[in-house]
């Protein structure tokens, strides 16, 4: 397999700041050239530390970082061919938009005419020509982000690293700038590595979503795979959109196993190939919230194909295209159904109603533990 210039490979990457606690432990990952990769996880999960190690602002305690096939540990950021876009952008407050973007060329010793020629082309690209002579303080959040992006991209890096690039913006702008980031990534055709704690952002942008917890990778894969087929309870809950049920395995037969969550009747789940589960084991099962159908308690379901749990409606939130209905189907756990708006209002439920939450058995998913 040929290695391309923007390929990133992390091998056994480990970081500890105090020698006791591991910020990042033994991370292995391949990010292909030109991919949009999102590291997703709660604060303190080590995602920013990995980004900073790739950028060269932090040295790994152990392991290797390969960019384009060469080990870059110990090299300066410029030698790595990476550029970083900082959280809240870190634009130089004393320099105009133009001089901010030209900074990398200035420190390389390009003369003024030459560096402004290159810079102005970039300014054109990110549509900032009008604001060329403004100071960062005179720009809006979205404009600042475009300056930061242009400043990082001017060196024509092979990898662009973005540290929570959208967290400084308000909701509406965030969605707008998300599109802008994607556009820039396609235009530049280089590898983007983006760190975020927002699953919405990650699945909207990324070709490769990397879910992290406590310094380790929990699951890495395409957005749809990570969202629709979470590997375990942590990933399912972090990405949301899933109900997770736990219980002891009662029987295993015909490629299905049945388990009993707490006081509930037995529920069937398809057995997964290569899953090592025996009778009596504690298991987690995920059911997508939009796979759940709410029925009146006297409704009949086709046993063998469907399964259902009864519950009381605790709360109803109107979300526009769907209605979020919260049930007390499982003790102490959230159980939510996303009901399409039209079908909900055909026969609306009220808070306190007893309902039957039903789903197709083959839509449920056995999670790893």
């Amino acid at each position, binding site marked *: 397999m040929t290695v391309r210039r923007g390929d990133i490979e992390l091998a056994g990457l480990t970081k500890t700041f105090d020698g006791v606690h591991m910020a990042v432990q033994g991370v292995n990952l391949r990010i292909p050239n030109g991919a949009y990769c999102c590291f997703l996880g709660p604060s303190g999960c080590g995602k920013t530390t990995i980004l900073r190690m790739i*950028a*060269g*602002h932090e040295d790994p305690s152990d392991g290797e970082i390969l960019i384009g096939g060469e080990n870059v540990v110990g090299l*300066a*950021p*410029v030698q790595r061919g*990476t*550029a*970083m876009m*900082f*959280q*809240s952008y*870190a*634009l*130089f*407050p*004393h320099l*105009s938009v133009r001089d901010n973007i030209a*900074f*990398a060329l*200035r*420190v*390389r010793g390009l003369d003024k005419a030459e560096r402004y020629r290159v810079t102005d082309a970039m300014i054109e690209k990110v549509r900032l020509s009008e604001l060329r*002579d*403004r*100071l960062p303080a*005179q720009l809006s959040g979205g404009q600042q982000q475009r300056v930061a992006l242009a*400043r*990082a991209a001017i*060196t024509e890096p092979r990898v662009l690293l973005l540290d929570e690039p959208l967290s400084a913006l308000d909701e509406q702008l965030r969605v707008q700038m998300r599109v802008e980031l994607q556009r820039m990534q396609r235009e530049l055709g280089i590898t983007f590595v983006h760190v975020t704690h927002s699953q919405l952002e990650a699945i909207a942008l990324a070709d490769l979503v990397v879910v992290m917890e406590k310094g380790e990778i929990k699951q890495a894969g395409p957005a749809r795979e990570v969202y629709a087929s979470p590997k375990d309870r942590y990933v399912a809950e972090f990405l949301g959109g899933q109900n997770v049920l736990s219980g002891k395995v009662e029987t295993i037969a015909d490629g299905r196993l049945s388990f009993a969550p707490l006081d509930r009747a037995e529920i069937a789940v398809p057995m997964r190939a290569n899953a090592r589960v025996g009778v009596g084991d504690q298991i987690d099962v995920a059911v997508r919230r939009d796979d759940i159908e709410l029925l009146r308690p006297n409704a009949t379901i086709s046993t063998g194909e469907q399964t259902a749990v009864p519950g009381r409606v605790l709360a109803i939130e109107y979300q526009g295209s769907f209605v979020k209905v919260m049930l007390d189907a499982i003790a102490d756990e959230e159980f939510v159904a996303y009901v399409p708006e039209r079908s909900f209002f055909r026969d609306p439920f009220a808070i306190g109603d007893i309902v039957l939450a039903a789903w197709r058995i083959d839509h449920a998913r056995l999670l790893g533990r």
Partner: protein
Amino acid sequence: MSAAMTSSEIRSKHRAIAPSRGGRPWTFYALAALFTFYVVALYGPMICIYILSFQDVRGGLVFPMKGLSLHWFIDLFTQVRTGDVKGAFDRSIKLAILVTIITVVVSFMAALAFRRRFPGDNIVFSLMIGSLVAPGLVLGIGVGLLFNALGIETSWYGSALGAQLSWTLPFGVLVMFAVMSRFNPAWEEAARDLGATAWQRIWLVMLPVLAPGLVAVALFGFTLSYDEFARTLQTAGPQNTLPLEIWSMTLNVTSPSLYALGTVTTIISFLIIAAALGTIAWIQRRRGARAGMR
């Protein structure tokens, strides 16, 4: 009808917010009086001196004013009996400039160093603050004694410089800490990310961003040195600095020359402060102006 009601409602609401519309509460007058007293107490004595320095040849050391002229200013710079005012002034300015430069450079570097923990950082910091707490006169005598013991002549540019630095440096470093705390370390990291060397990071990012703060530290160093007395008294050697000259004049000059000197030094101080503040304003305006350009 309803419109009238609304407007009266608005008015009544207005009244609820500012109960004494048109008149101020009595506390305003009490506090204004207190503030006036404070200003008079602060500037009154100095203003008396400035006024008395403009008397004519018959003038004395106390009110009432006798005539109006610049006689004592001329006297100050021409008469030998008033001492070497010009020389002292010259030395004080040179010394203050020297102290300013060393203070700015060293405290900038110290603040850079203190951005990270290093072994013994607490001890270094405590030692620094210690020299701030030590009584100036005692410290001055100590420096004088040390130079004596080492057999080095005390002088305004040697021992006095050292003694003054023991005063201006800790102050400079403390102010620089405050200046530095407003510097976002991400700026430096971004510069590094873009390929700037350590020197380029300092010249192109840190110094320009911190420039107004550095001017403030310089002003601080200058004024502390320019009127420093206690530490300089035993260390200045045979040639006086301006504060020492003024002090010795109070002992043996009994003419309004003394007051004229006070007026002149005040004017110089004001000019220096104005220059410093002007520089800060200029830096900021230049940034604003450049930003406004198309």
